[in-house]
């Protein structure tokens, strides 16, 4: 089984701080990590390989330091890592990003499964996985919560939707985007971590993947960011303070009175 896992290196968004003066993100001291939701895709790939045999290739598009994310994936047990890095790739939206990833995957040759995380925690779009499927005209299942069975004939999966679970079957190859329910990601062992530090990483540019320069980076992207601002969410709250036990009863009565005023009781 030949498995490809496209991943993304992202800033650790849970620790992102905004500069109140400028309204921009404070990038200083912000660690780069593997998109946490991609770890579930890597784990799924490793489990399929453990059962069926084969090879897992992890691939990312990003700046040269995105090798960090690839090494993390190698440490978890992936066999091969490819970095797509070039100035021409910079500024790509999801359309242009999925184009480059699809071209690189085509270049890799035969494969059975492309496994993606549900979305990246920085962009939060979830559009690149489906985009890769579309560029390559492949079957696609998103929000995959379980892989029921895999064989050379095909794969049967469960997909979590609003009203319940869908069971789908597809022949290989195809694209799956997985959610947290699929399985908890493993932690690399110390030895794997050490080995990953010296592992070879293949680096490709536009010419290596026969990419059309018209489709690359900001130039090839249909969308443009025109403005960035801090979110504004303001209501004027009536505040009640419970400083000592006696205040609690007063506050609770105020809550109930509020519910009645608003016609909620």
């Amino acid at each position, binding site marked *: 089984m030949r498995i490809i896992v496209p991943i993304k290196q992202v800033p650790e*968004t849970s620790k992102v701080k905004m500069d109140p003066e400028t309204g921009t*993100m404070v990038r200083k001291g912000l660690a780069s990590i593997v998109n946490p939701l991609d770890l579930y895709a890597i784990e799924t790939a490793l489990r399929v390989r453990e059962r069926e045999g084969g090879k897992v290739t992890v691939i990312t598009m990003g700046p040269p330091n995105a090798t960090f994310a690839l090494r993390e994936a190698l440490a978890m047990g992936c066999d091969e890592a490819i970095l797509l890095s070039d100035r021409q790739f910079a500024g790509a939206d999801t*359309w242009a990003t*999925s184009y480059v990833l699809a071209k690189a995957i085509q270049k890799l040759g035969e494969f059975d499964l492309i496994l993606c995380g549900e979305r990246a*925690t920085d962009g*939060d*779009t*979830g*559009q*690149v996985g*489906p*985009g890769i*499927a*579309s560029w390559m005209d492949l*079957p*696609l*299942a*998103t*929000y995959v919560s379980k892989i029921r069975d895999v064989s050379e004939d095909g794969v*049967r999966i*469960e*997909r*979590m939707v*609003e*009203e*319940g679970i*869908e*069971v*789908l*079957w597809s*022949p290989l190859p195809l694209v799956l985007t997985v959610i947290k329910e699929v399985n908890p990601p493993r932690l690399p062992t110390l030895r794997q971590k050490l080995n990953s530090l010296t592992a070879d990483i293949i680096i490709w540019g536009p010419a290596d993947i026969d990419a059309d320069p018209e489709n690359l980076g900001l130039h*090839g992207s*249909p*969308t*443009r*960011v025109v403005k*960035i601002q*801090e*979110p*504004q*969410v*303001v*209501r004027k*709250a*009536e*505040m*009640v303070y*419970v400083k000592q*036990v006696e*205040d*609690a*009863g007063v*506050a*609770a009565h*105020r*809550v*109930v009175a*509020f519910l009645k005023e*608003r016609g909620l*009781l």
Partner: protein
Amino acid sequence: MKKPEGEWKDIWTLAEVNRQNHLHSLSFELLAWGRALADQRGSRLCSVVLCHNLLEGELEELVTHGADVVYVVKHPQLENFVPESDARVLSFLIKKYQPEVVIAGASTTGRTVMPYVAIKTDAGLTADCTELAIDAETGNLLQTRPAIGGNIMATIKTPDARPQMATVRPKSAHPLERDLTRQGEIIHVTDVPAEAFTAKMQFEQFIGDATNEMPLEDADMIVSGGKGMVNSQNFVILEQLAHILGGAVGVSRTAVDQGWRPYSQQVGLSGKTVAPSLYIACGISGAVQHLVGMKTADNIIAINIDPKAPIFEVADLGVVGDLFMMVPLITELIRQEKSKEGQRHG
């Protein structure tokens, strides 16, 4: 990306059909979004319905809720959502009729079919928009959405490529009032090529949610807990309050990450967007990621020990205090109110 040839007019919304073969309420929310844009743009609002056994009379409901035109494609392959075929059919319609804007729900369907179609049609696509507007100068669609984990709001446009596509979160708009006097045209599109209805992926089975719980998005009152709940056992006090209110329990991401509650109850950017009549946030500090999922609730009460918690900035009523003292007390008072009420109506 260059401007494609063609007229590229009209605002489109993608309707969704539920398992009972009714239109999903999301279809009508999208018309509210689309109507505002179409009026501003002076163009028609069209709703697209891909279906098989949609019940009689449903299509007319799209007209009474704001659509000028309804494009319908009926085919057995469209009974269940399969990205390959749904995307092919929608791409065909887009190439044929050339809409300027296509809006879908940020549902599991919309978030899957739209990126597939965006590649096939060379369109710009923005996910999870919380605001849509027309740029008065250029007529471009301005799409605003949270990014970087909700820490910023980014406004995005598609200057040249067409269509301009966007998904918007379910429950982020109220459907327009039903207007029985509205006139509209229902067009059954029958020239979709047969190969569009083929897919390698096969739909095998649907398993309904066995928990029988009310889906969080449908609850009219939500009592939510976060980090301040400390452990899973403590959620029983929120369940009691939710029960007496006839509502449901929601949670912040922390509570899910800690394993206290299931993901299906998560409110926020990486969970669900809710817009209930009442949202009571208990021990939730109010990270922007959470706020974007609940700030459109009609009434918000926040209970938190920290007077500086950002949750108070979106609340109508804030209680600075210990939730373990406050929640049971409030529940008890409501119980008394309800029993008084019961006696009166005896």
